[in-house]
């Protein structure tokens, strides 16, 4: 039993089931991120944890107490909303202490808690203002303050950063991470932004179509995605996935693919059990950073394969240069050093780190595990 247990939870609206048997156990102090495209059910799940939506079947418990049917205010949770949901008619101070007031906390205690939270979030000077007079970042802080002041068992965040501009979003991300490290509270955080998921979480649940596709640490999710969806959803640019045939060369499995010229090239797998798939089609997944110029190839890798291919488009981004090219009949992206010398249209020898390559069953799209 964990701190927050989601056991076999489903949610239906009428005849339509939108969440299917979700099963997640969250330990105390964990930062769980629910990530997925819109409509995947992540917000519904969060609302069910909060008690804002009913549970069709299954159980949610916090600290071993079953929460089904318990009023949101009795779950000892706090939530930060995408729109911040600040009460427009109340001052910032009132906004923050409203929950305490509703729970009958005496005025002196409220004042003290407000002071602590305000100084923690550096919003002391805003307490008398109305939400309408605040900037986006300030509102974000107030919303967090409102959650923090309650000292809840579980923090719930519903896409809290999506209304901020890019720069502020990065800053606030760091701030949330810092807060979590200092306060060590349990967090469930919903986002559709996989970078937020990767940077903030201790564990990620990738959701799609009402199913949890994969639950694991950021590293597990990134390196060993359970299926094509997880592989392509997580990471930016997305993982390159192309059809390939497994061919045995000298007793070792190789991926046979067609290059930009239409010729067949082979890349040796690092994963031995792919021998079982000899002669069959698979889907080959390689992250962009695993296809690079030879000078930038991972020195620790035991399996760097050379691939000669024609460069399509080069896109310098400052830190890196991305190269788009055709491989296996698909447009794929390689991530090169910033000052690489490749030019559009020329043939180039790329270094492919096959240790990082993953293979998927083309029928089920599930990863072929080693």
């Amino acid at each position, binding site marked *: 039993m964990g701190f927050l247990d989601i056991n076999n939870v489903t949610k239906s609206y009428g005849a339509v089931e939108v969440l299917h048997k979700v099963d997640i156990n969250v330990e105390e102090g964990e930062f769980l991120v629910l990530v997925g495209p819109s409509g995947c059910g992540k917000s519904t799940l969060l609302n069910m944890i909060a008690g804002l939506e009913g549970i069709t079947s299954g159980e949610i418990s916090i600290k071993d107490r*079953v929460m089904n049917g318990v009023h949101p205010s009795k779950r000892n949770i706090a939530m930060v909303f995408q729109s911040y949901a600040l009460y427009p008619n109340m001052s910032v101070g009132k906004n923050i202490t409203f929950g305490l007031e509703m729970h009958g906390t005496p005025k002196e205690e409220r004042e003290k808690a407000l002071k602590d939270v305000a100084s923690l979030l550096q919003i002391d000077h805003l307490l008398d203002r109305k939400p309408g007079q605040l900037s986006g970042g300030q509102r974000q802080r107030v919303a967090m303050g409102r959650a923090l002041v309650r000292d809840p068992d579980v923090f719930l965040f519903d896409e809290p950063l999506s209304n901020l501009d890019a720069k502020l979003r990065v800053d606030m991300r760091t701030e949330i991470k810092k807060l979590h490290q200092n306060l060590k509270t349990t967090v469930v955080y919903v986002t559709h932004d996989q970078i937020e998921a990767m940077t903030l979480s201790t564990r990620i649940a990738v959701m799609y179509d009402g199913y949890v596709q994969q639950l694991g640490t950021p590293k597990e999710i990134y390196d060993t995605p359970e299926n094509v969806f997880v592989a392509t959803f997580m990471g930016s640019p997305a993982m390159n996935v192309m059809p390939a045939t497994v061919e045995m060369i000298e007793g070792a499995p190789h991926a046979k693919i067609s290059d930009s010229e239409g010729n067949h090239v082979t890349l040796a797998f690092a994963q031995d059990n792919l021998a079982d798939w000899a002669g069959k089609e698979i889907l080959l997944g390689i992250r962009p950073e695993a296809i690079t110029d030879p000078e930038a190839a991972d020195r620790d890798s035991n399996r760097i394969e050379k691939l000669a291919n024609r460069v399509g488009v080069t896109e310098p981004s400052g830190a890196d240069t991305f190269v788009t090219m055709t491989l296996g009949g698909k447009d794929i992206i390689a991530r090169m050093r910033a000052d690489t010398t490749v030019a559009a249209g020329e043939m180039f020898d790329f270094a492919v780190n096959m240790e990082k390559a993953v293979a998927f069953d083309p029928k089920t799209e599930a990863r072929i595990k080693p």
Partner: protein
Amino acid sequence: MARAASVDMRTRMQELLPKIVLAPSFALVLLFVYGFIAFTIYLSFTDSRMLPSYGWEGWTNYSKLFRIREWDTAITNLAIFASLYIVICTIIGLMLAIFLDQKIRGEGLLRPIFLYPMALSFIVTGTAWKWFLDPGIGIENTMHLWGWESFEFGWIKDRNMAIYTIVIAAVWQSSGFVMAMFLAGLRGIDNEILKAAQMDGASNWQLYRRIIIPLLRPAFLSAFVILSHLAIKSYDLVIALTGGGPGNATAVPATFMYSYTFTRNQMGIGAASAVIMLMTIAAIMVPYLYAELREKK
């Protein structure tokens, strides 16, 4: 819904409360509106005359109703009145709203002037209107006194034109209200859309015709609903201005219904005409409500 046993009282209460709060008004509406409608439908099949009576007569009242000339007049009048009233109110309301939205000096003074007729019932203004429209003492006479001898405005005395004077008074009453609705709509339009359209080189006329007026669709719909409901219910207006005359030339279904139910002691026929009226309203409103409510789901 499968629920664990630990549902606490407060939560259960909180779930029930909304329905408890809504229930009384829903019950009131069911009884006082739908119950009464059902009662009226029932009456329309009975031999009720002065008071409700329960002798079943089948469709007799309906067949009588459609043989009464005045009912034809009333229906035709309603069609003329409602369509003109709705169209003219909408045009004037829209025009005034657009004009008022041009940074007009004195808007604060003009707006209440346009709006105030809605505050007055025709019990209050009826006599003034009757005078105003009466050729003997009203505007025609005044023009004559001022030296414009050939001026003629005797519509209220002309059985073919009297219904149009009712339209004039009705437009006077409601067009300001429609103006307010359009003005609210205009003020609510996102500036960026207008900027974009101006960048695209739209002229003022095009801006209004192609961008702004289509964006006012919700205001048009609300205006339509409110106006059609006022048109169908128009009673005071007709009674105060013409009393249904000259002859029966300005009878409308509402006056017809009242007169048959209460003056002529033919409650059955009155109820039948009320049922027809309700069905007309339903035919207009139900599709609108259906579309509106479904959209919001």
